[in-house]
Structure formats: C-alpha cells, structure tokens
C-alpha cells in the first residue's frame, strides 16, 4: 500500500515544530507500524536527510517505550495495543496518516516524536514501592492473599508506563497511571502498611509536576494498551480520602 504521512518534526525542546509530509510506497499490510517508520527512515538516510526520531525498544508491547499519537489517537486506531504492535493492515491504501508526539506539558518534546516522560519516574519515586530492603523478609507463602485481590492487583500492575493515558486526556491527567500503582499496593497486605503515605505523596507529586485532574471522560481507559480500568481511579480516590481523615 502507499501512504501519505504527515509527521511532526521538531529539532529540540525549545525549537518551533511543524508538520512535514512524506510518501511511503509498497508497504506490506503485514508490516508493523514501526517497521513502516523504519522503511521511511532508511529512505531518508539514503537521501542524506535526517531520520525521524521516535522512541521504541522491545517492539512487543511490554516495555512502554513507544508512543506516537496516530490520527488523533495514542497508539493509533486499534485497541488494547501499543504502537509497536499496530500493523499496517489497519490502514487503507492511499490514506493520509498524521503522526504526532504525546502532547502534554509534563512531557516536553525532546526531538520530533520523542518526549521526556521522566515525570512518571518521579511519581514512582515519591512512593510507588514497598519500603523493604533486600533480605530478612518472611517466606513467600507466610501471608495468604485472596486470589481475587491478587488478580486485581495484577490487573493494575500490568501498566507499562507509556503515558497514553496522559496524552489522551484533555486535562493531561496522570490519574490512571498513578491509581494503577496505588491500587496494586492497596490490594496487597505487603502494600497496606504504607498505604496512607503512599497515596498522599504520589498525588502531591503528580500535582506538582503539572498533571491535570480527572473529569471522568474515560479517554484514558479507552486508549490504555493494557486496558487498565478506570475503577482504579475510584479506588485511589477512596484511598486518598481515607488517608486524609485518618
């Protein structure tokens, strides 16, 4: 198939960006979206032009490194996948594809389609852990955990930290990301010990970093590659409330 690409090009964080049009031809419908980008970049390099910068690594939907806002949707027109898992069979021959970076104030553009998501690391550093050191822990089976809770914790823990939730939200809210981590630990006895401090510190950090609030549009859940549920945000709100009054 042949496609017209409109790609956001931006030299650096402070530079002015703009859309640049490219044509790619004879793309197999079995190719992945990022393989199509590779083909474009090979052509650009062969012509002596600078390739388009974009983040990617594992290319199997688990590292969370890839991003891309494709035709107005984070990770493109499929559901429950990342950009690297998106395949060209989801596009039509002759289609125009608009490719942009995540757009949110706490995720400044580094170059072209690459953004800085270190704000997510800072939120985790504010409390996204259980404060145990290596060694001196009880036997793994010492504390039985209800299977339902372990499964719900795993549902939340599946978050890959890609930032699609923030990119999809009109408020650039990070509530889905933060609530997934808060929920994972809130559901497990190991995490309960520090539950109150954790939710307060992580929410405070999220606010300081400039992420917006949640106004219940569910846009985050709709684009989440791991289908993290919005019920985690409700759980986080409960945890936050309990922490404030206790």
């Amino acid at each position: 198939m042949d496609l017209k690409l409109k790609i956001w090009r931006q030299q650096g964080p402070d530079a002015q960006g703009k859309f640049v049009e490219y044509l790619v031809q004879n793309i197999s419908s079995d190719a992945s979206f990022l393989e199509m980008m590779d083909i474009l970049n090979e052509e650009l390099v062969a012509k002596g032009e600078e390739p388009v910068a974009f983040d990617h690594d594992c290319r199997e939907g688990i590292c969370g490194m890839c991003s891309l806002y494709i035709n107005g949707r984070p990770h493109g027109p499929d559901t429950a996948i990342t950009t690297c898992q998106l395949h060209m069979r989801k596009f039509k021959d002759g289609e125009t594809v608009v490719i942009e970076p995540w757009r949110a104030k706490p995720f400044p553009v580094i170059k072209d389609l690459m953004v800085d998501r270190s704000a997510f690391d800072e939120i985790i550093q504010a409390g996204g852990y259980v404060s145990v050191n290596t060694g001196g822990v009880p036997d793994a089976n010492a504390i039985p955990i209800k299977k339902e809770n372990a499964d719900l914790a795993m549902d939340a823990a599946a978050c890959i930290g890609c930032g699609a939730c923030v990119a999809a939200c009109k408020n650039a809210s990070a509530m889905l990301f933060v609530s997934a981590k808060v929920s994972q630990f809130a559901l497990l006895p190991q995490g309960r010990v520090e539950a109150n401090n954790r939710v307060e510190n992580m929410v405070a950090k999220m606010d300081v970093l400039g992420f917006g609030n949640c106004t219940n549009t569910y846009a985050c859940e709709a684009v989440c590659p791991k289908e993290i549920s919005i019920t985690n945000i409700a759980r986080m709100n409960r945890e936050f409330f309990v922490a404030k009054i206790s």
Partner: protein
Amino acid sequence: MAKLDSKVPEGPIAEKWTNYKAHQNLVNPANKRKVDIIVVGTGLAGGAAAASLGELGFNVKVFCIQDSPRRAHSIAAQGGINAAKNYPNDGDSVYRLFYDTVKGGDYRAREANVYRLAEVSNNIIDQCVAQGVPFAREYGGLLDNRSFGGALVSRTFYARGQTGQQLLLGAYSALSKEIKKGSVELFTRREMLDIVKIDGKARGIIVRNLVTGELERHGAHAVLLGTGGYGNVFFLSTNAMTSNGGAAWRAYKRGAFFANPSFVQIHPTCIPVHGDYQSKLTLMSESLRNDGRIWVPKKKEDAQKIQKGELRPTQIAEEDRDYYLERRYPAFGNLVPRDVASRAAKERCDAGHGVGNTGLAVYLDFKDAIERLGRNVIEARYGNLFQMYEKIVDENPYETPMMIYPAIHYTMGGTWVDYELQSTIPGLFVGGEANFSDHGANRLGASALMQGLSDGYFVLPYTMQNYLADQITVPHFSTDGPEFEQTEKEVQERIDKLFAVNGDETVDSFHKRLGHIMWDNVGMARNKEGLEKAITEIQQLRKEFWQRVKVPGEKTGMNVELEKALRVADFLEQGELMALDALTRNESSGGHFREEYQTKEGEALRDDKNFTHVAAWEYMGDDKPAKLHKEPLVYENIEVKQRNYKTA
C-alpha cells in the same frame, strides 16, 4: 599470562556459599559512603544490584540506555521464574534444581555457581512477594506454580504471561526508593562506550548522552555491568532494538576475557519471519508448551498443500499429524529443553514437513487443551500471549493452531567471571545475561530471571563488598586524570572515524547482511566449512563497512544512526569471535550444534575428554587473533552423561 582462577571456595558444594559469606571481607557502615560504585544497566541484574548496594549505604550511580530504568529488556520475559521451593510437594529440592540446570546446560557450566543459584532461588521469591509482586495464586491464597522445559517438577512461579515485567517493576520500585533516599543517582538515555582503567583496575566509564551527544566521564571504586546479551549480532532476534553487547565488548577490548561466545540460545517458540523489512522477532512464551502440542503433517504432500494455502491445519486428520516431540522424547514430550525442541523443529522443516508459506514453521496446537480444560482456563493462562499473536499474525489461535519457528533469544556466553562474578579486570563485575556463568551451553526456561535477580540481590552485594573492603582509603576519583582523558579521546576518535567514511550504504543494511551470515553459518546447525566461510565473509564485510557506511547528521545532539553505527561496528567484530569459538569447539553441546558431531539419532554428541572446559578468549589487538584460555570444568557432585529426555 594471567591464569584463570575461578576462586571457587573450598568445602562441600552445599556449604561453599555459606563458608564464603562467613569469611569474606565487609565494609563497615560508616565507610560505605566513602565508596562509589557504577552500575551500567537497569534490568534484573543491574537494577536489583544497584538498589541493594544503595540500601547497604554505598554511593551508587546507575545508567540506562532507555528513558527509564523500568524499560530494560528483562521486562519482556514472559513465562516465569524458577525456584526450589517445592510448594507443590512434587519432589523438588535445591539439589534437583542444581542438577536440572547443569544437565540442561549440557554439562558446560561451573558446578559451584549453579549450586549457589539454586540455593538463593528461594530467597528471590520471598523478596519479590515482600515487594508486592503480584504472582499468580491459588484459591487458598498461596502461590501457584507451573512447569517449564527440562524439569520433571513444577517449580516455576509466574505473573500471568508478564513475569519479567512484574519482577523488573519490583526491582525498579526498590531502585526508585533508593533514588528518593539519595543513595542512588540515576542517569537515563546514556550508552556506555568504554571502560576506564587506572593501574589495571576498572575505575570508571565513558558514556554518551544520547540526547545531547556529549561524552561524559564517571569514576568509581568499582564498575558493574548488567548490560545483557549480544543476540542482536544476528539482526533478527527476540531482543529489544537497543539491546547490544557493546559494553561487554568494550570490556573485552580492555582486557576482560570473553567466555563461550558461540553459546547462543535459539528459542523454539517464536513467531516465524514474514518479510525482509522485519525489524525483530516476537517470542511466544515457553509456558505455552505446558498445554500446547507441537506437530507437523506426517505426509509431505499435506505440508506442501498447506504451504500453498490449499489446505488448512484444522483439515488434517489426527492420524496424519506427527507430534514429533512426543514421538522422539516420550518422557519429556513437549517440555524438552529449548535446544532440543529447536533442532527437532528444524529437522522436520528441512525434511519438507514444515508449514506456513515459507515452509519454515511448525504448529503449536491448543485444541486438546481447550477441549480438556475449556477456553476460559486457557484464556486465563495465556490470554495476553494469544492476543499478541493475533495482532501480529492476524489469525485466532483459539481456532487455528499457532505457527512457530526457532529464533535467536539469549546468549549463554558472555564476559568470563569468577565465583565472585568479577572479570579478569579487577574491579569490573558482570551480572545477569552479560556474564557467562550459570547456564552452560543451554539455558533452561525461567532460569534467566532467576539468575538476574540472584546475581543482583544476593550475590553481587556480597562479593563486591569483599573486593571493596580494602578500597576505603582510596579517595573519590577525579575524572580529570590522564586515563579518563585518553579513554575519552579514543571514543571520540571512533566516532570521528565513522563520520569520516561518508559512504553510501546504511547502517541497517550492513547489520542485515551480518545477520544473514550469522544465521546461515553460526545459527542452529554449524559445520567447519560454513564457519570458516563466515569468518572470511565477516572480515570482508567489516572492511566494507569502514569504507562505505553512511552516518548522516551531526556529532552533537541526538543521532540515532550514529548510535546504531557504533553498535554494528562492535557486532562486526563480535560475530567473528563467535564463529571462531564455534569452529574451535569440535563437539556439539547444548545450543552449539556442530553437524559433524551427532549421534545416529541426530542428538548432540559431546566430547567430554577434550571440551569439558570454558573457552575464554583474550583480546590481543585488532589485527591479531584472539588468544584462547581454558578453564577446566570439574564435576564432583553430578555424574556427567549424555542428556536423555527420552526416559525419566
């Protein structure tokens, strides 16, 4: 010449590690903060070690190539992590895990290291549960286990099909805790380009900041590499795009011996190659072999019709299917080790029974499991893997059998390390896939996660301390010294040289060409003639690379093509050493299969008399052949025999 001293402690095998810890040197709490440690890589080994060393009170600087430590490629491990807990009461023990690992590695691993690995495996599970890792559980609230290849017990703990992700996020959370505390300083989007030695000891690194393009100097009392394997030498592999063997290769060129470079794992269950534009291969977890049955059509005519698209697999009658693993290996069936399963698939496809439009695929079928357990159970166990498969191949594996084929997955070879995981450069430690130590010639499934975390949480924090105990009077290193100056200059020259070529062929094009040479000659089946050809072709390709490669853009700022060019330049050297090692090892063992050395049934035929050793290569200069050193492997606790997966 330096002799290889494995430093294995005295005493019975079950007491070696306890004895070591009882007598090793320690650093007192007040002195720890005087000591700096550099950790390169934030996967299971690097991330866990950095967090644990920070907890102990050392000053740690940790570096990762991605934008966050949470993205290291350990995250992609799917199936599980082994431990000798024996929770299912099915006869497991530390000895049995040790035995299975040594046997699975085809008797080419160091006994004492493997025993220690089995010994600390249980601590890993305890640690991860305490961190809040949501392992799969039974209805009674206790942890669930499943089986993996090469074992007769169920000892694999798992978190759906995302075990690597959950374990890595556990290590990442421990690391984040230490970053917050200030004991660990984090550097992201950095790639290590050289090791700095002062008076023969590793004292620092040169990294390139991938955003600004600047070279940076960092000094420390000791350096730890947790930088993963070199599977991407083959271009197509299950490794992530930035996974590269560069750090370990640079260590090799600075004097660290490189062990068993030819020992590469080819994973039997990957999604087959579909086009020449393809950038990487996707693994389908080995755990699928718990319930999936592997087969090809018995009749060649059926296989040919399937290849042409005239017949569907579901139309092949039961009696016309060849469940070749169950046929050849009745005791282990579909759960034979990876090297055995991969070769068996290749054998069937080479004989004309392969499926898919290329004929280079076999079926992994869940029909029986779905009938026996119901679709819901299979979905709960493997749902995310089935979804991943469907997105890539556009076929529903609940209804049509999956197609799989072997692909490059893991490297057992790596930097040579002693029992303390220290390389032949004093002060340079290496953990996880980057070292060679525990898996011999073939790694069993669910053992990579075990080894990464064992090294990171429970081994390196002890052994590095033993080394650092007499360093407390050495002041913090200034990076203005002549050694840093000189090493940075050499890195800069390498970069300048790449730009100076200004040729007409892209980096990826060279990388693909190297990959073809490697896969054809240094892949699943190797022979003398092919390996000699590979060495000549790689030398020729390397020459061409330095005459014709095109690196566009600037030296400063972000330049992805330059990053790739630096890695491919290293791969072009490493590939040759892999071929040389394979050529020198005149036997078949584990993942290293030399066609000249096989039994009548086509199984790997070892030569224990001449090759029960680790082959450790020493760099002698760019124009000189590497020098081979041998570390003899002594088996005192396990009887060495031919691996048998046919009977229990």
